[in-house]
């Protein structure tokens, strides 16, 4: 019995590691924040589902990046099917809900548009996911060796943790800025195409109209001359 307890730490770790670290062996543990960008064709609707535990917080932020009108219908439903958020023809939105156990469904609806497909960006931020999320950070139990200077280590670790959380926030803001910039760039590029196209059309119309005017007037006088003689 005593012998078993004294098995060295790394051996015990190695015994337990494989099921967790082998990729794909036991499913994957997804991260708490995820963002996706996808294309929604005209006349279609797409729904996504997010399982949530009790008393966690679900924040969803979406933006329409491309597509005529830059708007979309959005709705968020609780696990029982009750509609919590219903927005029509908005170009961006952010919603936070405190959750109960179950799968939350949110849908983007482009059925009102017959020809233009939309590019939609959405970001899910999950908080207070509970025990499971906490344990995800316990990877530090897997490290080898010890650190000297235990007393000072606490302070250093604290400041490092705060740096990490601030960098995460910076990363987050960058994602948002990227979405805004993508949308503005798409607007500009469509402006550019529009200016080119309508200038050409304008030129054609002017030339054709002036030619028609002149020939119509001339034809009026030619008829009169024939009738006179």
């Amino acid at each position: 019995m005593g012998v078993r307890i004294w098995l060295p730490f790394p051996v015990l770790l190695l015994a337990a590691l494989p099921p967790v670290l082998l990729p794909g062996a036991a499913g994957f543990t997804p991260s708490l924040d995820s963002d996706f960008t996808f294309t929604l064709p005209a006349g279609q609707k797409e729904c996504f589902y997010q399982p949530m535990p009790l008393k966690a917080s679900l924040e969803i932020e979406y933006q329409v990046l491309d597509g005529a009108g830059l708007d979309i219908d959005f709705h968020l439903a609780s696990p029982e099917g009750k509609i919590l958020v219903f927005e029509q023809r908005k170009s961006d939105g952010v919603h936070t809900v405190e959750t109960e156990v179950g799968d939350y469904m949110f849908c983007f609806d482009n059925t009102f548009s017959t020809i233009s497909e939309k590019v939609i960006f959405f970001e899910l931020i999950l908080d207070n996911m509970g025990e499971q999320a906490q344990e995800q950070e316990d990877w530090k139990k897997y490290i080898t060796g010890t650190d000297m200077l235990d007393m000072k280590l606490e302070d250093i670790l604290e400041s490092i943790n705060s740096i990490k959380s601030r960098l995460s926030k910076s990363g987050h803001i960058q994602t948002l800025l990227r979405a805004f910039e993508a949308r503005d760039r798409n607007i500009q590029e469509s402006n550019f195409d529009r200016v080119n196209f309508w200038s050409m059309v304008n030129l054609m119309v002017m030339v054709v109209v002036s030619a028609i005017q002149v020939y119509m007037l001339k034809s009026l006088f030619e008829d009169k001359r024939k009738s006179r003689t």
Partner: protein
Amino acid sequence: MAGVGARLLLPVMGRPALLLLALCTAGAQGLYFHIGETEKRCFIEEIPDETMVIGNYRTQMWDKQKEVFLPSTPGLGMHVEVKDPDSKVVLSRQYGSEGRFTFTSHTPGDHQICLHSNSTKMALFAGGKLRVHLDIQVGEHANNYPEIAAKDKLTELQLRARQLLDQVEQIQKEQDYQRYREERFRLTSESTNQRVLWWSIAQTVILILTGIWQMRHLKSFFEAKKLV
């Protein structure tokens, strides 16, 4: 195997052992969506260059008799296709019902990740629905830190420092890419502005010239017809 490990671990570190088991059995509790048999779902990732992207997915098939989703779907495959900003195919592979795909970007821009199922077996199930759990990790989120810690034998402090360095590097790459995009954006805006200005001037000049031509042509026409 996990059972033996747990029995040995429990006397030494009770709670963490239980959590290992929990991680093994909990599976994915992330975003999922439904996909039809021939349906293709595409996601766009706008990333800087030399960035690694790891995608994990898990599929579940709808069982019409039991009206529930089966926990796993043997024999069902998903085809994953990744295109780079120049529409060149970077990755095009078939995976099983559960899989992970990885690619590294070599040009900055919009990469398109498309998933569709390759199976026709779903036609046997009248529901024809497949549930896909998907998770895409970009940049430093794609790094597997427990593995790196074990491989390089890092202490906790060193591992944290390594994490911070990776994070800062990713932010810097994103900023460089942002600068390149902003430049492109500015060029398009300036070109549009210029075109609007030149076109307005050209339009005015053409209108004036056309007016002059019309008047002169009609005047000479009327004079020829002896009306003026």
